[in-house]
């Protein structure tokens, strides 16, 4: 197999596996901030107990994120060194900024978050939780800046000197706020919030069903369902913004989202379908409004949308995989809005904890945001093909010249084996932690030395 395919496969595998964890940390961080804020305000030992439990899960998730994350920073250089030479001036800056502003903040305060219970005052522990969560968000900011620049390059110029061609920053802030940064950042963060929230909802539903740790579970469920609902609505809004941006800046990708081939014609949207790539058409169920895609993009159902035939065949992304992942992502997004809205309403009516089928559905729903995250990235990244930097550098031109297929095959096999092992151990340990559940907080064990009696400070 050729080295381009293998290197892409390796990058896809390592980034997909890595991306299981950061959204969980970001979302769980938000849940922890809320739980600790409740604890700080009410001094309710239940809130502390619940926060402590989720802190332990956070520690496990975070360790996996760190272990798999360092691979990503190395891989740009190991497998994509020609790309690195071309973009380093632009792309390196957000990576370095991520290290300075995000990783140090996260890892420093993580120590207090995990090991600071009973060692520092509750207010300082809360501060540490806020800082770790902020750090995780900053990390998302900088890496999305870097990735968005690959999607919609801006603030740079191309310089040719000494036989080499590369992109250099001319306007740092134009590079940071390139046309897709804000939409894609908010869209990604909405997904991350839902990922963390649904982990808490799922586990809490499981506890209620099993009549274990019920108080902690109800508290966790309340907090997480509200976060999930807010985030799912934000996901819809930012998703629409992202799609508009794609229509404007990456028309080939938008055309692939909907399998729209006609060079310039009003375009429909599909609920689901199958792309006949040879016949250049889609067979499937359309949204019953004619010209829906035109309507969403231009606010006018009769206006034309640029289709795939406007691009030479070598400039088109693979259509089927982009179409399918995009549609599945949208479907899962809708499901998540419905589920969190239903959950909040049932909670409001005080019926949720008696409805066992709903609770069981919630247990399984933990997979939905994870799947949507992965599918969203597949549509974003495969949809950018054949470019590694949209319009500037082709993916096949970004490879390391000195790394051959044999080397990549060996590393790819090793990554697959090691990541499978890690996944098995991670799931086993997460399952074990969940089955163990929250520990009750002993009276007198409080950080400030005060003893809690009936929720009051004695």
């Amino acid at each position, binding site marked *: 197999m050729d080295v381009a395919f293998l290197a892409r496969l390796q990058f896809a595998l390592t980034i997909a596996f890595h991306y299981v964890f950061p959204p969980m940390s970001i979302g769980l961080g938000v849940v922890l901030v809320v739980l600790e804020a409740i604890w700080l305000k009410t001094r309710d030992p239940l809130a502390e107990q619940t926060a402590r439990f989720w802190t332990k899960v956070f520690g496990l998730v975070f360790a996996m994120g760190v272990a798999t994350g360092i691979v990503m*920073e190395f891989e740009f250089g190991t497998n994509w060194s020609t790309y690195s030479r071309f973009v380093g001036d632009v792309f390196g800056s957000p990576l370095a900024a991520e290290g300075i502003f995000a990783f140090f903040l996260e890892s420093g305060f993580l120590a207090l978050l995990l090991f600071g219970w009973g060692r520092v005052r509750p207010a300082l522990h809360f501060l540490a939780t806020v800082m770790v969560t902020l750090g995780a968000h900053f990390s998302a900011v900088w890496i999305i800046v870097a990735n968005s620049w690959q999607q919609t390059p801006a603030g740079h110029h191309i310089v040719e000197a000494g036989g080499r061609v590369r992109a250099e920053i001319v306007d740092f802030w134009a590079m940071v706020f390139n046309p897709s940064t804000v939409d894609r950042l908010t869209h990604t963060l909405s997904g991350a919030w839902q990922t963390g929230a649904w982990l808490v909802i799922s586990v809490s539903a499981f506890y209620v069903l099993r009549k274990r740790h019920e108080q902690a579970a109800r508290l966790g469920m309340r907090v997480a369902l509200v976060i999930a609902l807010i985030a799912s609505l934000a996901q819809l809004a930012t998703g629409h913004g992202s799609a508009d941006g794609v229509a404007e800046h990456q028309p080939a990708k938008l055309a692939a989202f909907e399998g729209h081939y006609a060079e310039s014609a009003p375009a429909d949207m599909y609920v689901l379908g199958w792309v006949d790539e040879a016949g250049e058409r889609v067979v499937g169920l359309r949204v019953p409004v004619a010209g829906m895609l035109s309507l969403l993009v231009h606010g006018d159902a009769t206006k034309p949308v640029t289709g795939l035939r406007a691009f030479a065949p070598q400039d088109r992304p693979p259509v089927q995989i982009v179409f399918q992942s995009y549609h599945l992502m949208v479907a899962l997004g809708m499901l998540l809005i419905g589920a969190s809205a239903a959950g909040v309403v049932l909670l409001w009516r005080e019926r949720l904890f008696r409805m066992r089928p709903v609770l069981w559905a919630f247990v399984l729903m933990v997979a939905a945001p994870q799947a949507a995250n992965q599918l969203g990235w597949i549509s974003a990244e495969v949809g950018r093909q054949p470019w590694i930097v949209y319009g500037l550098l082709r993916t096949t031109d970004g490879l390391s010249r000195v790394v051959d297929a044999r080397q990549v095959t060996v590393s790819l096999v090793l990554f697959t084996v090691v990541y499978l092992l890690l996944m098995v151990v991670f799931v086993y340990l997460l399952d074990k932690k969940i089955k163990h559940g929250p520990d009750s907080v002993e009276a007198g064990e409080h950080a400030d030395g005060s003893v809690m009696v009936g929720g009051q400070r004695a």
Partner: protein
Amino acid sequence: MSASMLATIWYAIVGVLLTGYAILDGFDLGVGALHLLTRKDEHRRLMINAIGPVWDGNEVWLVTGGGALFAAFPEAYATAFSGFYGAFILLLFALIFRAVSIEFRSKEPSRAWRTAWDVGFAVGSIVAALLIGVAVGNIAWGIPLDDRHEHVGTLIGLLHPYALLVGVTTVALFMMHGSIYVVMKTDGELQEIARGWVRNTMIFFILCYVLTTMATLLYVPHMAARLRAHPVLFVLPVLNVLAIANIPREIHLKRELRAFLSSCAAMAVLVALFGLNMFPNLILSNPVTANSLTIHNAASSARTLSTMLYVAVGGMPFVIGYTSIIYWVFRGKVRLDATSY
């Protein structure tokens, strides 16, 4: 500021980040390398928990150093990472196994489980230290680069005796540094054992250090060129030897923090010596020295370097601030409690 001035400043910043990495991750890699030397589960837990709150932050120095290299000297980043492909992939697996071993080990009481992750932690730490040293040795020795700055050698070519010697020396240095850290963070039985480790690893390190110094002077004379040209810089090796000599003295007087700081100082001086003699080269090309990557032909544009300088100058005080807070909060001897690994 001139482009050359900016590139020089960035050379220093990358140097500072990598020094921070060597000093900080150096002790937790060292603790990992020593991990299997004690068989008692309690000792192993104490050692892991001694680095528990800080190892992750220590590793961030490597990540940020790598990011800074990418941003400031993309040509050097690209050449090193693709040229050392096999070595870097191996380093990644070593770092992955060490990270998850720390997290996973205490989650099951079973002996086989714990032994497996103990081995993962120890082997990962030793391999990581060795590979970092081998990389340093190769950069000092020089690697074959073509006129596009691509590495044209093989993986086996990177494992020549000098590079391996620097690799082993790095393992010895980190083990010495780690054993001093264990003495500082523990008491009782484990501390007594660790005192023995300090003695043995110091002997190990000094033997390696003498050999590496001899080999460098004999076979890699360009790595002493700046000191030959500026004899006043000989104060650095003197400081280095004094710092190392101070370690057993402070250990004997039971002033562990001072012993640890001496070890930190010795490492900082070693990196400074390396950086001074390499300057202005980032990666030496051997045998065609004209193809070397220097701070001039590998750097990003002056505009990017100056923008990033604001980022670094704005960010690093915060980094140093909260790193200090964390080390302050977790000062003193390590104790096992409910939140421990």
